[in-house]
């Protein structure tokens, strides 16, 4: 499964980064969200670390929805989805491949968002950067696992992308809370409750990866 998944991820990344239009649009949306939130404070007023962390993850979520909609839209035309579904590979390889591609694309966007949060919201990392990066990676794995699954749900005839957002956002609340707390810890320094939140984020990633591995073949068929 890993070989086909890597090939699908590579194909998706090539297609998504060609012209970089999709990624630029996604990063721009996230930047806009951070900028708009910065307007909620008077000039010179400090944004609390918790709020800054929440804004970072909100931008990530919106870009995540765009990224996975885009990844599944790649096979929307000319029966390409049918081709992928009929390929002699495990259907889960499609989920994993798209999750990997989405994970990397979202990570690229987050690199931009991190700088924007530091600049627009005046934040600094007092804690360990390695812990920060580790937390973001663990949370992103959970987001990608569910994002790739939900992307398949929204693909095909009769699907509504806006509906996907309505389903996706409440489902990711646990990992969102974990991400917010972890990042707040990194901004403020000190690593008190971090491990427990890391555990919740890891549990989320594990539960939804397992669920996606079992359920994805039901969702992803060649039917239009």
């Amino acid at each position, binding site marked *: 499964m890993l070989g086909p998944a890597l090939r699908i991820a590579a194909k998706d990344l090539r297609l998504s980064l060609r012209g970089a239009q999709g990624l630029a649009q996604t990063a721009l949306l996230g930047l806009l969200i951070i900028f708009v939130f910065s307007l909620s404070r008077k000039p010179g007023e400090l944004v609390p670390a918790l709020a800054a962390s929440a804004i970072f993850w909100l931008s990530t979520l919106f870009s995540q929805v765009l990224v996975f909609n885009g990844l599944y839209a790649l096979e929307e035309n000319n029966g390409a989805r049918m081709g992928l579904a009929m390929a002699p590979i495990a259907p889960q390889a499609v989920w994993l491949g798209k999750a990997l591609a989405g994970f990397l694309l979202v990570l690229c966007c987050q690199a931009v968002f991190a700088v924007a949060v530091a600049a627009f919201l005046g934040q600094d990392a007092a804690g360990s950067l390695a812990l920060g990066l580790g937390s973001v990676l663990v949370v992103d794995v959970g987001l990608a696992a569910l994002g790739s699954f939900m992307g398949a749900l929204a693909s*095909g005839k009769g*699907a509504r992308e806006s*509906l996907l957002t*309505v*389903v996706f956002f409440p489902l990711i*609340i*646990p*990992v969102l809370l974990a991400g917010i707390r972890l990042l707040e810890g990194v901004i403020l320094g000190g690593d008190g*409750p971090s491990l427990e939140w890391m555990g919740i984020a890891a549990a989320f990633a594990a539960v939804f990866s397992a669920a996606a591995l079992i*359920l994805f073949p039901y969702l992803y068929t060649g039917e239009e």
Partner: protein
Amino acid sequence: MTVVLAAIAALALAVANWFIWVHAPLEETMGLVQKIFYIHLPMAWWGMISFLAVFVGSVMVLWKKSAFWDRLAGASCEVGVLFSGLALVTGSLWGKPIWNVWWTWDPRLTTTLIMWFVYCAYLLLRQAGVGGERGAVVRAALGVVAFLDVPLVFISARKWRSIHPTVFGQQGGGLEPEMFTAVLVSIAAVGIFWVALVRLRTLQLGQDAAVRQAFLHRTR
């Protein structure tokens, strides 16, 4: 059968109301407002049981590929959204005089609200006909995923902050025996009502599907 169930439910709810207003004593500090609890708790519990029923129905759809289980999941979800919505509203009505806020961050409140959002979205997906021909399977996958989220939502929300009173907690809670009887009767009465509602909606969805099948050439 549905009529009989509905009649028993009506009778049971009437009896439950006698227990709530006559049998159970007035709570000392909260006064009359505490009576909301006898409606709130059964609604919250049966709301959560509805979501469990959606999960069971969804697993059965994936396993047996039967349209009956899909309809049962749909009916349970409708009733669940209604009941948990009422639990949220009654909780808010209780919270305003007692906590002095309509809403606060609490694991149980948050979990109920998030599940309400998720299952509302599930109903929207049902209405929108997502998945086309394979709609039942797509909905079932969502029904399973949604339920897997419940413990994670609860744990993360509890870790965030909690002020909810524990009625049936490890410390034994704070219920008088009469109040305990009243709440049990209320849970049972709402339970019968729940069964009647779910059965009625399952049958209606079945009839709806049968009519659509009969007029297939018109709907396509």
